[in-house]
């Protein structure tokens, strides 16, 4: 991206950023070991995968529960899609003004003996989405994936994200170097926050939960900036210059954005699926996962988790 183009983007985006798209961006924070970031023109893929939820999406905001998937991949190619290393299924319940995030660790085995993350690299976003849809048992309306460059660019152009870091994070591999407390994370900082697993005894489980927490923090940031209808369009324009979109319209994204912006972050639950042991570093689905998915599936709101 040229300096001029970045300047224009910064000017356009500034404070009035769209909640859900930033949230989608943040929720696509991924893990893995990074190479030096390249500034890419395209970093985002949105793909609608049939069968879609039978929700009304023709005008106004969606009026039924929406399920969608945000997945970060480890491609260092600004235009590429690699391993699906950050996997988050998000449900939004318009009636309850609530949402839930189901976080799936990248090493989870969903059948066939391999890790779930490889399905994205080998089968593409469509197959990956269908796999996750089948695994969780929900109809996913569309899915989103991003890579390193796009993520950092977007966070930087947003002006950073205020995150309340819960415990010390000092990890050379990810670049995380945060003391507890509210920190304003820039793009590389947010990336490091999303990638750090060595600072926690629970490793990847904590890292995966942190990614969901970052999503909620980002939404809170956008809400605090009092984004209006025009601001949502500004962000959509900003995102659109960097993304590839398939089978999802700007109108749909606009409506979903407006809906998500009405949800109190306190009404968003963020839960990592239970996992057990497995061969190698694989994680098998753990005890209680069926109950979690059933709780998630019925109305998108986690009442008992």
């Amino acid at each position, binding site marked *: 991206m040229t300096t001029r183009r970045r300047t224009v983007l910064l000017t356009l985006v500034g404070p009035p950023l769209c909640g859900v798209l930033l949230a989608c961006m943040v929720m696509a924070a991924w893990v893995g070991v990074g190479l030096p970031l390249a500034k890419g023109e395209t970093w985002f893929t949105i793909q609608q995968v049939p069968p879609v939820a039978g929700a009304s999406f023709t*005008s*106004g*905001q969606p009026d039924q529960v929406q399920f969608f998937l945000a997945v970060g991949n480890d491609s260092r190619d600004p235009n590429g899609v690699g391993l699906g290393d950050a996997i988050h299924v998000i449900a939004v319940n318009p009636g309850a003004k609530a949402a839930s995030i189901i976080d799936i660790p990248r090493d989870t085995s969903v059948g066939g003996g391999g890790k779930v993350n490889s399905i994205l690299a080998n089968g593409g976003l469509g197959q990956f989405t269908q796999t996750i849809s089948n695994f969780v048992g929900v109809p996913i309306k569309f899915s989103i994936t991003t890579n390193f460059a796009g993520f950092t660019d977007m966070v930087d152009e947003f002006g950073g994200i205020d995150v309340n870091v819960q415990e010390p994070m000092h990890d050379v591999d990810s670049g995380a170097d945060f003391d507890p407390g509210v920190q304003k994370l820039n793009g590389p900082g947010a990336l490091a926050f999303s990638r750090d697993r060595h600072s926690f005894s629970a490793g990847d489980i904590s890292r995966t939960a942190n990614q969901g927490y970052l999503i909620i923090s980002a939404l809170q940031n956008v809400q605090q900036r009092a984004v209006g*209808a*025009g601001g949502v369009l500004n962000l*959509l324009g900003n*995102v*659109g210059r960097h993304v590839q979109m398939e089978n999802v319209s700007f*109108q749909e994204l606009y409506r979903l954005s407006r809906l998500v912006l009405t949800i109190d972050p306190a009404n968003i639950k963020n839960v990592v699926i239970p996992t057990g042991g497995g061969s190698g570093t694989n994680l098998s689905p753990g005890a209680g996962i069926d109950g979690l998915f059933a709780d998630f599936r019925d109305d998108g709101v986690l009442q008992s988790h």
Partner: protein
Amino acid sequence: MQLVVIAVAAGLLVTAAFIFFLARGDDGGSGPTKKSVSANVQLTLAGVQNANAGAPATFGDDAATQIMTAVGQYVDRGLVVPVKTGKPAADVSGLFDAGTQAAIQGPDRDVLFESGKPALTGDFKPAAEPVMITALSDGNGQFVLATATFAYRADVGVEGGTLNTARTIALTFTPENGEWKITGYDVSLTRQGAQVEGSTTSTVKK
């Protein structure tokens, strides 16, 4: 001598006509920036902000005029005429797209539009701030969404004094069969003064 007088007079006439033409062009012109789109309220365009998802594109004057015309109709039919006539807003459904029809007939109606109650018994002074349009173009340079944001207020003479109403309005438009239709809205209404205890604020979003 007579020829000189005629020539000077003709010259002055041409100059005056030229100045008149320029002045008229500045007032109305081809763009929608100066001319009010409401017969009742000075309602003008403050500016257009382009949000481009692809290559740079500019929201054209024609499209901006269409949006402004719809905004003017919304203000006239939805906010002004009901106060003047004492009757609920009529002929407004055509401004909205198919997906919003149910909502504008439901509980949102009382915030989106004036109802004609309480009855006008005194002066009626409506006013609006200039309208800001933000328009989004897709990757192909086609404009797919636009918002018109403005503030509207009115002082309405009613029994017991003056009722003050203030609305902050954001109307979101999308093309439908070649016409820009309202597909979403974000309207906040505050009433205070006569026939209102304290002040009330209601907000509707779609």
